[in-house]
């Protein structure tokens, strides 16, 4: 993958917004990779949790907003309890999802779910899914 870095990207308002919404200081991360080592969802991810933090530090907005990984993360908080620098990675990922959801770019289209998908699962599954994946 070819990635271009620039001062402009580093100072993109996107970076400030991610920090603001997540309440995290991205530059604290020293890229040890522990978050990714224990994440149960890495098999399905195109950008790993530590890379998400790195990309966010560098202002790689397009890559993050288009990533599959942010929707595979289940906010299980494993990374948060393990990060030696005390970073809440799950909150950073939530912030990126929220940036999309607040523009009504829903990940799950409720009206497109099949009746079986909607009917067979318990309310707890539907409510949490819609809370996380719809605006």
């Amino acid at each position: 993958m070819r990635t271009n870095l620039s001062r402009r990207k580093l100072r993109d308002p996107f970076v400030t917004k991610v920090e603001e919404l997540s309440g995290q200081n991205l530059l604290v991360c020293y890229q040890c990779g522990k978050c990714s080592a224990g994440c149960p969802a890495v098999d399905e991810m195109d950008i790993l949790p530590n890379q998400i933090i790195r990309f966010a530090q560098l202002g790689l907005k397009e890559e993050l907003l288009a990533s599959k990984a942010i929707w595979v993360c289940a906010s299980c908080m494993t990374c948060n309890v393990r990060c030696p620098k005390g970073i809440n990675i799950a909150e950073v990922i939530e912030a990126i999802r929220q940036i999309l959801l607040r523009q009504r770019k829903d990940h799950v289209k409720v009206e497109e779910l099949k009746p079986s998908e909607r009917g067979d699962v318990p309310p707890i599954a539907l409510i949490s899914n819609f809370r996380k994946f719809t605006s």
Partner: protein
Amino acid sequence: MKLSYFPGCTLKNHAKNFEDSALCALKTLDVTVQELERWNCCGTVFSLTTDDLIHHIAPVRNLIRTKQQGSDKLMTLCAMCFNTLKRSNERVKANQEDLDIINDFMYREEIKYEGDVEVLHLLEILKNDIKFETLAQKVSKPLKDLKVASYYGCYLVRPEEIAFDDAENPVIMDELMEVLGATAIDFPFKVECCGAYQTVDKPGVVADRTNQILTSAKKQGAELVVVSCPLCAFNLDHRQKETVAKFPEFKSMPVMYFTQLLAIALGCPEESLRLDLHYIDPKPILQEKGFI
């Protein structure tokens, strides 16, 4: 101790086996709980963004209802309700400004919330208030020879601020199983996420996890897995259908709520177990051991 009880969205339908067994067990233990008269869904997940206060309204409203019942303790059974209610409670307790905004928003409520309700999970009540030693004396049908793996998942133990046990190596359910006379089986996937709400749009992901988690428990010798969350229960039990379709060599495993085993050990009638709500029938193993 006056205890209010918050059931949440799933305990009145798909997880009726969780509610009925817990209430029967508590009755046997002479613990009175009063369900909130007008509860509302907690939202199921704690809102993770700093500026999003609106999603704390639902949890805080339930805490107001608790106070209106003259109680200062709210018991939950579902791990997700526990997590959401407790985390919102901790957030408003630590941020007076947030609490003021939330109280203002609910200006028509008769009373204000002042951070004065404690959110508790049944497991911690059993251990700290009722006490395992007392419970042990009330066991009338010990779960002899039953090998049980306790699956904790995410929301009982993470983040550490709200957990009542170790985030990496919780043992409270294992201890309870031993108190009930069963053999607790430790296994490496007990705090690994089951995929949670991905089950709606990505059931394949959940099938992978269910395969991993239950196969690991089986390898360690477990005959049954217990959980404390209706979403984990759905994923680990009902999604075994998708799991076996994806992994033909997968061996099925009954999954129950810890309260169902508690109810059995305390001599509750079989109706309170609602064994009809399971996908993998736990009856054969329970009958084989002579528990039902």
